[in-house]
């Protein structure tokens, strides 16, 4: 059973928040860093408190650290050596392997995210704008009293209108599929992955192989912790809308093109495999049905849902590899940043997109595999293409749509996403935070 009173709430539950802020932090001294961790650790919401929280409980802070951050706080070299290689190197160092090339290269990343001085991230959740102001002010005041801790950069996360359904700037409905953890009392919906063992997402528990893998040391620091892979992806909404217009004459055709590259209808999330011709709102919002399909039997050639559409790349649903699929899951957290661009407005060139943390216990096996192979491997399914959304696309975007009698190519002038940030963090349990605060 998971120790919910020791696990940060971040990966286990979503607070009643519509707004968040990421503050990327640097410690000028070890002592200042430890004081900061100590002061904030009491504000960190545990899974237990946040799950039981009513709307007045505001302890929705989450804290995570880079490898440099753990070292700066004074973790000894022997312990540091037990952390996994991707985390030690950091995401920017692994860009070539991940496929972050051309405009997506870390040299172009924002928010000083590749700085050697990036030590931690604090995520502040708030129910509304007023509450966010209060949290930010409180954190800023704390920093004023502790000049050894500084904010390198901040990113404001805010839901995009219309607020009736969760979606990103392109308008795709989000959060339809999320992993379920065994023993949490939540049933997987039909067609979803079987519940994962806790060790896939939290250190110190048996994973899907039934063993507890070797953990970073000391155990008090790693137990109940997770690793986070952070990605900031800029969305070029104008380019995306131009792409839809270039490939579809009528509104209906454009919606079908949008659905073909995602694998689900844009506004409802209804899967193409189940409704290939026309959107079906009721189906999209019915959790008992919206994941209940496969590709192998229902759409082997991709006539309904193209083989390189986003959902088919990121979740292959093939029984031949499904056992392995269960070992590639991450828990996604995050949201949209930047101003909303209304449907009929021309692109104003503003920076907007998504900023997401993927939680797991093994960055190489879970997070890096998803990015380097399913998102970015052009050899995937031999189509020489990358994922339309999560992939790093250097040049013009092209995608094959299986169609009778012969396949069709969708073409765009430009990629409509660019990776603009990324980092690896370690999200400790509460005891782990206290341990870091107590280092000498």
């Amino acid at each position, binding site marked *: 059973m998971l120790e919910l009173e020791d696990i940060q709430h971040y990966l286990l539950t979503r607070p009643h928040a519509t707004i968040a802020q990421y503050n990327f932090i640097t410690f000028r001294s070890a002592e200042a860093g430890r004081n900061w961790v100590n002061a904030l650790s009491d504000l960190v919401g545990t899974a237990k408190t946040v799950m039981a929280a009513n709307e007045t409980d505001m302890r929705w802070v989450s804290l995570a650290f880079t490898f440099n951050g753990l070292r700066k706080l004074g973790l000894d070299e022997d312990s540091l050596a037990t952390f*996994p290689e991707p985390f030690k190197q950091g995401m920017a160092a692994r860009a070539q392997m991940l496929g972050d090339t051309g405009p997506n290269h870390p040299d172009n990343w924002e928010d000083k995210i590749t700085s050697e001085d990036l030590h931690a991230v604090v995520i502040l959740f708030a129910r509304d704008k007023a509450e966010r102001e209060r949290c930010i002010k409180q954190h800023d005041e704390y920093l004023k009293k502790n000049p050894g801790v500084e904010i390198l950069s901040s990113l404001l996360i805010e839901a995009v209108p219309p607020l009736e359904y969760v979606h990103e700037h392109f308008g795709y409905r989000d959060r339809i599929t999320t992993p379920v953890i065994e023993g949490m009392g939540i049933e997987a919906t039909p067609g979803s992955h079987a519940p994962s063992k806790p060790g896939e997402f939290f250190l110190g528990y048996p994973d899907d*192989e039934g063993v507890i893998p*070797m953990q970073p040391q000391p155990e008090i620091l790693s137990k109940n912790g997770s690793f986070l892979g952070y990605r900031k992806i800029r969305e070029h909404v104008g380019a995306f809308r131009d792409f839809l217009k270039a490939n579809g004459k009528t509104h209906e055709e454009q919606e079908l093109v949008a659905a073909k590259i995602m694998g689900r209808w844009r506004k409802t999330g209804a899967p193409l495999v189940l409704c290939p011709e026309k959107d079906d709102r009721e189906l999209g919002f019915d959790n008992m049905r919206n994941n209940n399909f496969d590709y192998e039997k229902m759409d082997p050639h991709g006539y309904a849902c193209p083989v390189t559409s986003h959902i088919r790349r990121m979740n292959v649903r093939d029984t031949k*590899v499904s056992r*392995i699929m269960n070992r590639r899951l991450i828990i996604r957290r995050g949201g949209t940043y930047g101003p909303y661009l209304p449907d009929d407005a021309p692109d104003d060139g503003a920076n907007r997109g998504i900023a997401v943390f993927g939680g797991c216990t093994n960055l190489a096996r879970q997070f890096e*595999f998803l990015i*380097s192979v399913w998102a970015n491997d052009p*050899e995937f399914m031999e189509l020489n293409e990358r994922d339309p959304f999560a992939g790093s696309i250097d040049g013009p975007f092209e995608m094959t749509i299986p169609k009778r009698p012969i396949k069709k190519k969708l073409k765009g002038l430009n990629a409509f996403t660019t990776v603009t940030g990324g980092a690896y963090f370690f999200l400790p349990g509460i005891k782990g935070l206290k341990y870091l605060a107590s280092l000498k």
Partner: protein
Amino acid sequence: MSNNSKNGWSTPAALAIPKEGYFKKEDGRYGPLFPKTPANYGFTIICKVKPGRAEIIRNHGNTIQKAITESPSFLAPLKLHYLRWVLFDGDTRFMYQGIFDTDFDKYTEDAVDLFSLSGLTTVFENLEGFPEDWKTNKEAFVKFVRDHQCPSFLEYGEYPYVSSDEIKKALKLKDAFSEMLDQMQ
């Protein structure tokens, strides 16, 4: 190196490979990446057999045969063409060679996972230097495989760079065409 031969599948191609096993050092998740050659991706793992254990390894051939007979798509995720298992030097050494269509680095965990499921680890446990804690220490398992990998210095393909999926598609097409011709009689 380009992944595609200039002249396509119909012109046989050979590729000489530097001693390191790659042309330009490029890191994957677990170490340097080995290039795709006219004979696609592959590995050649050569290890010493623990004294007196060769028979256990040899007998394991039947176990694998049985596993594949019962579940033919067992190894499908690895996109294999061929696997070869050889005991040599008077049963003192073991060679495991594979030819496949995916970069091994990308599918390392799948391979390790499938090795474990197929009982291949029973074979590995009879090899010198195999980590005893492999069940909880997958990194050590991966390191053992990488440490014993002997890169080719030359690889040749009669139909270069062709994937097993392409071959299967071509054979399916041939079957479909002959079926069509039959139906038109």
